[in-house]
């Protein structure tokens, strides 16, 4: 069974891949390289094309246009069973008529491997469920099924492991635990993991590299910190965490910094964080980067004055404020509750300040609300 496609190794390369269903384009001219050995996440809302991309890599769909290479081997049209790629399916897809042992041995047996006991037992040890070998999938809890689905895939030592919303069916606590475990297992077995999810926190926790997808295209790709600190589009700024986007105009430069005018108040921002096309911009600041101060207090850095506290939510580690600015925009501010100062109260007149380094600038013609819509947790997308 070890034909050329099956033994392929190396980076995964998608070149200009498009997938259309009639008039609808699920994936639009996507090019992407995923380096061997990395933990890569495809992040995006329901219907953004991430699952379709995954299915094309798995061989369950064929691209309308474009090619997929694994190392130097073209796998665009090879059958799923001819690719050294395995998938952890959404809701696991464990075979209900087979025992856990036979589920895990399934791939090994199909490849003609006679002695499967050692490999299966080893991978059962890895996921810490050796005592369940003779059970049926329905007798397992969700978390256990998830681990078996993972074991069933990695026992084959694929060049690439695809994870399709693997933690979506688990409750929050179990999800956190599995995130850490998955990351550990990936390091342990040294395989390339491609992880599809709509949960930005999950992607940030686990992946080395995240590609944020929207409407069939990649909006931005980079490490979690890069994406968070320096988003290039409003969609990324809003989909990964939360952002305050304030309309403004670039009015000048000051060394490595740009100077912007936000409703009559001047601020500065690093040139390297400006993605503006012309002088019209949205200045973006993450809510936790803001500091609130009473009017008379002096502050350094950027300052926007004339705010008024509209709403206060105390949530333990921090307090969230909604601050109404003179131009009628509400800004969101997260303050850590670590300074022993009594929180501000609704109606307090305040200034808002922050370090200029934390400012990014987006094109002024963007939709400032892109990526903010509440994403339904629809697991059966696409």
């Amino acid at each position, binding site marked *: 069974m070890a034909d050329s496609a099956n033994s392929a190794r190396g980076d995964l390369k998608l070149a200009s891949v498009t997938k259309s269903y009639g008039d609808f384009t699920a994936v639009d001219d996507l090019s992407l390289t995923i380096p061997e050995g990395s933990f890569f996440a495809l992040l995006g809302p329901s219907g953004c094309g991430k699952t379709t991309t995954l299915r094309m890599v798995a061989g369950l769909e064929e691209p309308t246009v474009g090619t997929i290479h694994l190392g130097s081997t073209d796998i665009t049209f090879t059958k*799923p069973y001819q690719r050294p790629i395995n998938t952890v399916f959404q809701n696991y897809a464990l075979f*209900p008529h087979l025992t856990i042992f036979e589920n895990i041995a*399934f791939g090994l047996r*199909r490849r003609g491997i006679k002695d499967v006991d050692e490999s299966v037992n080893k991978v059962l040890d890895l996921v810490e469920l050796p005592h369940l070998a003779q059970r049926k999938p329905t007798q397992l809890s969700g978390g256990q099924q998830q681990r078996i689905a993972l074991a069933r895939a990695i026992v084959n030592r694929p060049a690439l492991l695809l994870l399709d919303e693997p933690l979506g069916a688990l409750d929050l606590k179990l999800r956190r635990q599995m995130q850490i475990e998955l990351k550990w297992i990936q390091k342990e077995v040294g395989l390339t993991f491609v992880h599809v999810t709509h949960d930005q926190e999950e992607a940030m926790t686990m992946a080395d590299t995240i590609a944020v997808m929207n409407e069939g295209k990649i909006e931005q790709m980079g490490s979690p910190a890069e994406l968070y600190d320096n988003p290039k589009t409003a969609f990324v700024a809003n989909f990964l965490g939360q952002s305050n986007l304030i309309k403004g105009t670039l009015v000048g430069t000051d060394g490595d910094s740009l100077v912007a005018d936000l409703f009559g108040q001047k601020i500065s921002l690093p040139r390297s964080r400006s993605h503006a096309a012309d002088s019209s911009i949205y200045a973006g600041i993450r809510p936790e980067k803001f500091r609130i101060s009473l009017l008379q207090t002096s502050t350094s850095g950027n300052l926007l004055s004339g705010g008024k506290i509209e709403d206060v939510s105390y949530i333990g580690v921090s307090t969230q404020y909604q601050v109404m600015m003179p131009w009628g925009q509400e800004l969101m501010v997260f303050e850590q509750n670590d300074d022993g100062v009594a929180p501000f109260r609704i109606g307090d007149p305040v200034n808002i300040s922050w370090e200029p380094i934390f400012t990014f600038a987006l094109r002024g013609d963007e939709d400032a609300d892109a990526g903010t819509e509440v994403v339904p947790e629809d697991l059966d997308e696409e």
Partner: protein
Amino acid sequence: MSSIAKEVIVSRRPLGSSLSRWFGKNLIRIYMALAFTYLFIPVAYTFVFSFNDSGKSNITWQGFTFDKWLNPCGAPRVCEALGNSIKIGLLATIFSTILGTLIAFAIGRYAFRGRSASNLLIFLPMATPEIVLGASILSLFLVLQVNPGFWPTVIAHVVFCVSFVVVTVKARIASLDPRLEQAAMDLYANEFQTFRRVTLPLVAPGIAAAALLAFSLSFDDFIITNFNSGTVTTFPKFIYGAAARGIPAQANVIASAVFFLALALVIIGQVVSRKRKVY
């Protein structure tokens, strides 16, 4: 919840007296007891009269005897009729299960031109009254100058069993998670291995249910059989023929035995499937 069900059955509320409250509370039980009594009266009657020490006709109670149970083939031709019913039933089951399962996979698994027309062709035999079905098949055999008999009966049974097999197996296929087959392909099983190792084992209970249904439909059929069987007597035909001059108690013995056998099979099936707890 309980109040909903209560009021579904009787839209009047308990009047407050303890008797009517008891009645309201247990209405569903009383109803089920009545319904099951209605269902089982003829079965019980048939069973009791299998012990009747009767002669040729078995209408009035003559006294208790085990004789008919010890000698179920005692009445002329009754066991021959039973044998024919079993043979016809098994053959009709085998053919209709094979043909119907293939059709069910085509309709349940593929999108193709003519799929809705295919569904219609499967629905039509079920919507055709048995008497029309039986009569039209007979007229075909007459045109082809084939005498009614054993094989024409088998063929006629396959015609009306196929649709029920298709519907039953199709439902099972529809409830199958397509991701299981994708997972098999992902795990290096080619199309044939996927079918053999995953699809078929998962659809098998549906096929078994369809086969049982086909057998029971064929075994119990009278109208279509009556048209196409010529001189071959089946068990229902035997009863129909004997009804005018009196049904021997041996028929009751055989019917009761079939009843208990089927019941035992179903119960064993349930116990086994619960033990294995597969699905």
